């Protein structure tokens, strides 16, 4: 039994972090955040060369063929750097194609996903988190109609996974006729959300039905939890560093227990949560009986402690923590969005209770 990361996994995180520090430092994130025409194509290109785009694509199709734990570790590193990269599609599209795609669909899309030539996004919010404002997509005769909201990376995606209201997943080409996209400004300027309109859009159904959607949901919950883990770790690190250098009353503020204990509380929440995310990701590939429950717990729990760390780390910085100039707010907002996307913690915990038979049906 071994509950630890392999040297390869540590290397993946370290080298991804180094690449991000080079191609996507905070100034670069800020430019992306401030300019809606900036697509961060340079960042995506560099990360594709790194192998990120093909992380979950099988080796035979030009990818790295890695599992969800590796993907979660990459997601953690992206969250740590608030990288302007829509990562969910990178993980979910190969998964969907491998589980529900035909030979032809795999042959067409997997190599393009692996090279980074095609970006994918998943429009799966409504059947998972609930539909509002008349959203929801209906499939009829191989065509999709309706609208899907809260789609990370949906503005630029060349391939869309779309879940209909019955929980079936479809492939839609980015250039399909009748597909309309609009930007949904959110609190998080580091990743853009789209609203997609479907007017009898041609779609190819994937096999697997709602079970495929359930797998995509579990994977997405783990990836979002891991992004929060990384973002929260970055906020804690920044708070500790600030507490060691900022002086008031003739002492560094980190020597005051009032401040020191806030830092300890953040670490005490975060460290065990790391093990929960690891296990949830591991279970997705290796412990099927635990997979859905642990994905839900990881998503909900990281949402809760992420919120606590986001506000507490900001408080440790005092007034400067609120400023745009410092940029701490990018992490704060990213954690906030991860919390709500694909179901807030209350919704996800209800699912966790149901999956273990605690709710009478």
């Amino acid at each position, binding site marked *: *039994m071994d509950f*630890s990361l392999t040297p390869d996994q540590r290397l993946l995180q370290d080298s991804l972090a180094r690449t991000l520090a080079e191609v996507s430092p905070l100034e670069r994130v800020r430019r992306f955040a401030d300019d809606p025409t900036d697509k961060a194509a340079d960042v995506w290109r560099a990360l594709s060369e790194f192998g990120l785009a093909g992380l979950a694509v099988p080796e035979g199709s030009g990818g790295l063929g890695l599992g969800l734990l590796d993907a979660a570790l990459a997601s953690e590193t992206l969250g740590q750097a608030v990288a302007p990269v829509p990562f969910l599609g990178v993980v979910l599209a190969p998964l969907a194609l491998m589980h529900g795609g035909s030979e032809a669909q795999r042959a067409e899309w997997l190599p393009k996903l692996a090279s980074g030539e095609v970006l994918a996004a998943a429009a799966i919010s409504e059947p998972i988190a609930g539909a509002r404002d008349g959203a929801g997509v209906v499939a009829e005769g191989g065509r999709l109609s309706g609208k899907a909201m809260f789609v990370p990376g949906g503005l630029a995606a060349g391939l869309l996974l779309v879940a209909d209201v019955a929980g079936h997943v479809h492939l839609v080409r980015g250039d399909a006729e009748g597909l309309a996209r609009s930007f949904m400004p959110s609190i998080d300027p580091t990743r853009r959300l789209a609203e997609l309109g479907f007017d009898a859009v041609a779609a190819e159904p994937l096999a697997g039905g709602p079970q495929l959607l359930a797998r995509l949901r579990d994977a997405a919950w783990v990836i979002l939890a891991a992004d929060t883990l990384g973002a929260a770790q970055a906020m804690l690190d920044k708070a*500790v560093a600030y507490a060691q250098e900022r002086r008031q009353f003739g002492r560094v503020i980190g020597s005051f227990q009032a401040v020191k204990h806030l830092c*300890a509380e953040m*670490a005490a929440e975060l460290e065990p949560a*790391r093990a929960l995310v*690891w296990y949830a990701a591991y279970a997705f590939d290796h412990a099927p009986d635990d997979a859905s429950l642990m994905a839900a717990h990881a998503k909900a729990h990281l949402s809760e402690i992420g919120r606590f760390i986001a506000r507490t780390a900001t408080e440790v910085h005092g007034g400067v923590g609120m400023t745009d100039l410092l940029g701490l707010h990018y992490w704060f907002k990213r954690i906030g969005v991860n919390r709500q996307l694909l179901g807030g913690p209350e919704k996800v915990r209800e699912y966790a209770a149901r999956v273990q038979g605690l709710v009478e049906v």
Partner: protein
Amino acid sequence: MDLTLTPEMARFRDEVRSFLDAHRDDHAHGAPKDVRAWQALLIANGYAARTIPKDYGGYGAEPDILKARIIAEEFIRAGAPRGIANQGVSMLVPTLLEVGSEEQKRRWIGPTLRGEIVWCQGYSEPGAGSDLASLQTRAVEDGDDFLISGSKLWTSTAQFADMMFCLVRTEPQAAKHEGISYVLIPMDTPGIEVRPLKTMTGQAEFNEVFFTDVRVPQANVVGGRGRGWFVANTTLKHERGMLGDPNATEARLGSLIELLTTETVDGERLIDNPVFRDRLMQLQARVFAMKFNGLRLLTAAVSGEPAGLAGLVVKLQGCELNHQIAALAIDALGEAGILYQDGPHLRAKGAWQRNYMFDLGLIIGGGTAQIQKNIIAERGLGLPREPSPAKA
């Protein structure tokens, strides 16, 4: 990461399972019929005192953290009681194994493991709580003996303990941390008075112990004279591991789920209340986080890597979680949650209420939550210590 069991480990797990199946009648509701007989059976089979050498009364197996983990898990699964885990077994024995003399090991470890000698811990004093090193109970040389005078506080089991492992000041001139010795004191020595200390639970889980010229051989010092602070830190390390034990927390959560799914009010199960269900799920996520954190620590221990922050947070988080689990049980029971002591409507013989109160004591004891936060911040995050106030 690979959590599958090797064939050897799977075989070992099956062995533990068959043992527990075969001895189902020796215990009921998590308590053995005969504590010492159960302990003897566990030692003979290697499920208690597993890695303690045979010469000292243990089972004598090579340390194997995975097997230890399998034993713990299977006992939880079967709802079977573990062996004796009092302060003698959990704290004194590991300390003697680490720093005791050969004679001390042979004399004390075996009877302690068998439950023949019960120990209490004499650390805290009225004036030395979080600042334990300022303790004032003094031991004055008198020939080959010490004469010990002073008092100890929060001494659980002192009223029926045979022996105490105790911190006393032997070198009053030395610096605060360097004048302390760790000494073993027979509780029937003249000059010792034990007064029960009743707590909010209504029971006397603790005592005050008073010493007046208590004569103890100098040979009873463990780990060398003046070295007591370092010996005690060895012991405290074991105590903190015991206080945040995720296995115990997981077992408690299991009882809570059972309560919420079987108990009804207005004909509805407590779990059918969405607020309680949501709180339960929040706690379950935390229990899993601590469980996997424990597996991570285990792996680190096997490979000889430092535990780091993951280890430093266990006592703080684990004790708080236990308290929250009891709180939810009481809240969900509603008015039945306020019953106590005895009566036909009392659930679990009042264990939830008692745990709720006693767990607060465990949040405070063994290094308060605030001291734990200092440790996490200073040793784990590298934040500076609070500067000492200028000497007046």
